[in-house]
């Protein structure tokens, strides 16, 4: 690993992840952007059918962001492996499960397009029922997102701990990420997650954004990283 350049490459890829994830949510109407999940089936159906290409582009961008997160998992593993190979592996596995579940959730985001497309075999349902199914499918995608967040919690808990222990990245970022991870883990107890959702989202965004900016602007402490890598090789 080139300790001097790779962290900045990771930071740029991290930025790309942010742009595609946020861009996808903003572009696709009703998929978690501003205003949250729609509750009016008819209005949601109208927005999807009138902006179908935009909707599919938004969902596609979300899927691209998931693919980028898979790549990030590998890069974070390489970056943090000198701290603890085992915990870095555990972190990556949580991330991969998170990405698999998130990718599966995309199916539910695409289902409304199929349901509202008016295929002749769907004529056994009336329009109101198809619109209800389309909205239901979007709500399923949201539920799937909640399941994915539990694995995100496991990922960030170990990610934050490794950063905290690393000595080549700021400890405060590690603490923020681990706290965010604990927040996402509250989705195992949904009422607690609902109570803490705003705080968790704020901490989660602040933690990941600060890490991304730090990697792009500051990189890592090269000398410390090389030292940790040498220690890991020796052991």
């Amino acid at each position: 690993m080139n300790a001097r350049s790779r962290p900045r490459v990771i930071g740029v890829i991290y930025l790309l992840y942010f742009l595609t994830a946020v861009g996808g949510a903003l572009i696709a109407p009703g998929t978690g952007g501003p205003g949250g999940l729609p509750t009016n089936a008819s209005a949601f159906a109208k927005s999807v059918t009138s902006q179908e290409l935009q909707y599919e582009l938004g969902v596609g961008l979300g899927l691209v962001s998931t693919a980028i997160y898979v790549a990030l998992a590998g890069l974070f593993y390489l970056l943090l492996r000198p701290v603890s190979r085992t915990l870095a592996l555990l972190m990556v596995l949580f991330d991969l499960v998170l990405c698999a579940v998130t990718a599966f959730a995309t199916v539910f985001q695409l289902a409304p397009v199929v349901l509202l497309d008016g295929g002749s075999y769907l004529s056994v349902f009336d329009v109101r029922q198809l619109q209800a199914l389309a909205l239901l499918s979007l709500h399923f995608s949201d539920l799937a997102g909640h399941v994915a967040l539990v694995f995100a919690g496991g990922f960030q808990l170990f990610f934050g701990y490794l950063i905290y222990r690393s000595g080549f990245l700021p400890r405060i970022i590690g603490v923020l990420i681990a706290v965010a991870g604990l927040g996402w883990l509250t989705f195992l107890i949904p009422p607690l997650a609902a109570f803490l959702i705003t705080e968790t989202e704020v901490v989660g965004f602040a933690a990941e954004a600060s890490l991304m900016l730090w990697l792009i602007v500051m990189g890592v402490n090269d000398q410390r990283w090389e030292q940790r890598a040498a220690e890991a090789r020796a052991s």
Partner: protein
Amino acid sequence: MQRSYARFAGAMYLTVLALDIASVIVSSAVSGSGGFGDVSSRIIASETVYRVGLCLALGGSVATVLLAVGLYVTVKPADPNLALTALLFRTCEAAIGGVGTILSLLLLQVYLAPAHGNAFDSHQLGALADLQSIGSSGTAVAAIFFCFGSTVFFYVFLQSRYIPRLMAAWGVFASVVYAAVWFFVLIAPHISSIPLAVGSIPILIAEVATGLWLLIAGVRVQEQRA
């Protein structure tokens, strides 16, 4: 480190089992049996308890990742390639388990629908609730990935002699039997309840015994080196 991870894996074996069994007990105690209307009214009456059951299943999937890494670090010195293979199988199991929880939450929304008034009548909702067969298939697929991972882990235990050979051999046997049973469930779902119940006993014994052994006695690293 290997001994610590072995004890951790033992604890996680028991944790995963406890979470999975508790999840099945809680969910089935709420839903019971009967037609869509009966099941739906029971779930609506005990929605929170039913959700607790689903969260226990999700906790089981999360704990599976921890268990897999614990076992991986324990058996890696004996055979790194097989250890990694088993780790990947168990990780796939966790991912499919997460998807299974999503399908269960999906089904919950269908069962809760009569309480909210909606575009579908009870017959249509009942037909939608038949989607639970998809969830059952998801369980079978996750179980098959579990069986492959479990077979490989127990095989490495058998080769390495980290745990008593009889226990490891029983684990291999039980995992293979369990895989065969779950393939049978996929092929003939309507006549699989008795084979499934019988086929679950060996793997339950293997997991509880191995979990307790790893937790209490750990692994015999010295013997493997000799």
